């Protein structure tokens, strides 16, 4: 990373943070570690808990027992062999994720992904976090100002001063006067004050692909403080969308993400309450608008957008915080040395962000296109014109070959690897045709990997503590740094 620059954070004292987005990716572990944050402190201050992936309930048929996992570990031996064709040929009565990866069983049994003796940020089973965003933001702010030398200015921006070529020279603030800078990062949320309003970069709407446009969120206490806590996100399909269910140590957060074209707000309230239970009917429900889409360009002149200012998608695969991390990492690692080379870095940034947003939209849509549900919301999701071409082609291809390393998911920092597509496809009952002799040459290797997975699963189940017990131990004893 380039040394010798300073960072100033200008934050309005009058605009509240959105505070949604309680699911993250395993990338957050390396991001926090790189920032020099103790994982123990993070757990204690952010009401954080473990997340080992997501369970999608009732997405395929809508039946009571309909569900599959998208775990965070790769299928066993993934870089050497694609197990999917072998599972397709003979699944031995097991779900795909259970046959190839230990995490379905870990989640079903409420187990944590590590032990109290596992060092900070190290895993026995790959994990991300659930966290309280309203606590995470001030925690990061405190760390960045106290330890990393970020200057924090509480001020409202009243206008933006631009040069003739459009570059931003400075921000005029109400409380702190003019604040000049060489590079401006727009983190103004949905307002997109710099990139959108000032530099006029238009918003690319994606609601033709992803229909959900509203979320109703509510927080529920546990029945008892030591009630079991899931170590995965539970996403349950509903009549016009889906409900997230995220377990933090002190409470559960649930929210109904739905399409207002397919459900009235009143009906959505009822759906949420019927999931939460009638006893919660008087709890405060927050309504959050979702406008699926992103800026057409992410970096223009000397300004780039990160976070909601860049765009937003429904939180089905927790893509918001990971996009922030990846963008911040790129800027930090490739901080332009001067204005002359900035446009080159900007072009790269735009290219990689277009790719990432495109792949995330494809992958979110994938969850909707294999359903057998019959409500209008779900039928409309199958309309061919609502499916991006790239995804349409891949679905066509995957009828005959299973996704693996042939499928252009070849970026160094790929958002969703081929493994993720496998978990969703085969979790939802998609069939790839397997010829009688297709697997012959790799069958012994596949048998070995499947056996290895069964052995590892058994070993992990014996070794790993209950999710809630480990969280309590982290509060009491802390994790060791090594």
């Amino acid at each position, binding site marked *: 990373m380039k040394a010798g620059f300073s960072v100033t954070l200008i934050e309005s004292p009058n605009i509240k943070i959105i505070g949604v987005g309680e699911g993250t990716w395993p990338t957050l572990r390396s991001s926090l570690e790189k920032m020099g944050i103790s994982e123990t402190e993070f757990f204690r201050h952010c009401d954080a808990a473990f997340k080992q992936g997501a369970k999608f309930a009732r997405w395929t048929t809508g039946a009571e027992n309909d569900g599959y996992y998208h775990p965070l570990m790769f299928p066993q031996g993934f870089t050497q062999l694609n197990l999917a064709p072998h599972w397709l040929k003979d699944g031995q009565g097991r779900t795909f994720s259970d046959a190839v990866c230990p995490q379905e069983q870990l989640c079903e049994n409420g187990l944590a992904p590590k*032990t*109290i*003796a*596992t060092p900070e940020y190290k895993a026995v089973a790959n994990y991300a976090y659930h966290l309280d965003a309203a606590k995470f933001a001030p925690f990061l702010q405190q760390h960045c100002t106290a330890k990393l030398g970020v200057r924090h200015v509480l001020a409202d921006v009243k206008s933006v001063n631009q040069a003739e070529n459009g570059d931003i020279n400075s921000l005029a603030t109400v409380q702190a006067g003019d604040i000049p800078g060489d590079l401006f990062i727009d983190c103004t949320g949905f307002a997109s004050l710099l990139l959108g309003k000032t530099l006029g970069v238009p918003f690319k709407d994606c609601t033709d692909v992803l229909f959900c446009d509203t979320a109703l969120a509510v927080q529920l206490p546990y029945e008892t403080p030591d009630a079991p806590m899931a170590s995965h996100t539970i996403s349950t399909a509903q009549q016009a969308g889906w409900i997230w269910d995220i377990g933090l140590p002190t409470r559960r957060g649930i929210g109904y993400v739905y399409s207002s074209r397919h459900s009235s707000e009143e009906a959505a309230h009822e759906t949420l309450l019927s999931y939460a239970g009638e006893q919660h009917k008087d709890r405060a429900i927050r309504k959050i608008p979702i406008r699926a889409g992103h800026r057409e360009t992410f970096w223009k002149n000397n300004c780039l957008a990160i976070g909601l200012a860049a765009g937003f998608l429904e939180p089905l695969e927790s893509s918001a915080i990971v996009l922030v991390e990846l963008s911040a990492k790129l800027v930090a690692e490739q901080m332009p040395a001067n204005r002359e080379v900035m446009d080159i870095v900007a072009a790269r940034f735009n290219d990689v962000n277009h790719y990432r947003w495109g792949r995330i939209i494809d992958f979110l849509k994938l969850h909707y296109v294999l359903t057998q549900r019959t409500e209008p919301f779900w039928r409309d999701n199958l309309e061919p014109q609502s499916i991006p071409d790239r995804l349409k082609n891949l679905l066509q291809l995957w009828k005959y070959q299973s996704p693996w390393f042939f499928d252009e998911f070849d970026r160094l920092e790929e958002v969703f690897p081929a493994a993720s597509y496998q978990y969703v496809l085969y979790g939802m009952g998609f069939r790839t045709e397997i010829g009688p002799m297709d697997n012959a040459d790799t069958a012994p290797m596949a048998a070995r990997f499947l056996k290895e997975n069964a052995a590892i699963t058994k070993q992990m189940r014996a070794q790993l503590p209950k999710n809630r017990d480990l969280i309590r*131990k982290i509060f*009491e*004893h*802390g*994790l*060791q*740094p*090594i």
Partner: protein
Amino acid sequence: MAGSPTVTNIVLLNSQTHRSLCVHVEPSARYGDNQRFVQVVVAEIPHLVMQYPVLLSKAADTGAFFCGAMLGVDEGENLFLREGGHEGYRPLNLQRMPFYVSGAELGIDLDHPRIAQERGQALFTEQGEATPYLESIKSAFRDLKPGIEMTKAFIDTLMKLKLVEPIDIKLGFDDGSKRELAGLYTINQSVLRELPDASVLELFRRGYLQLIYLMIASLKQVPVLARKKNDRLLQASEALAGSR
């Protein structure tokens, strides 16, 4: 603590109730000396390093580091046990069994295999006075109890200065078998060499520098221990060949 009996029945020691109680005192696997890794205190380190690797490990239930001596390679193995005895220095934590300390009081585990109905060493005289054996146990706890706190302070200092690193011990034996010992930690010597002067001085003044170098020197006991294990394995396979 590693290797402690999981089922215990610990009661406070009482010269009335336990007047006639006896304890088997000789070192023996069947009395619980069969421990591969025994928690130790800093005061023991100079004695221990003559025989054992002295390393750090983590307590399974808290993840906290503790200091220990490595007595064997496999679970439940103490390579220093001999018929009716123990080679060289026997760690306090083995010496004190089956006693525990609770505040200022001494406790005893009545379900411990060392508890004897007859034979063995008496704890009290007929007058209810502590026997020399019980006095020796009390003396062991006089070292052990404050020693645990002192050892924790030592380990905290090591952690603060980032002087602890994992060590992978991989052993291969003449019978073709291999062992990989995980979960063990030692002194990070490259960090030690780069320590600022003030830290070195502080370590020296607190007596820690000597302990650190003793722990580093004790790594030379790993191959000695491995040879002992190798001899054991060869004896076992010869015995097996002889019996055919």
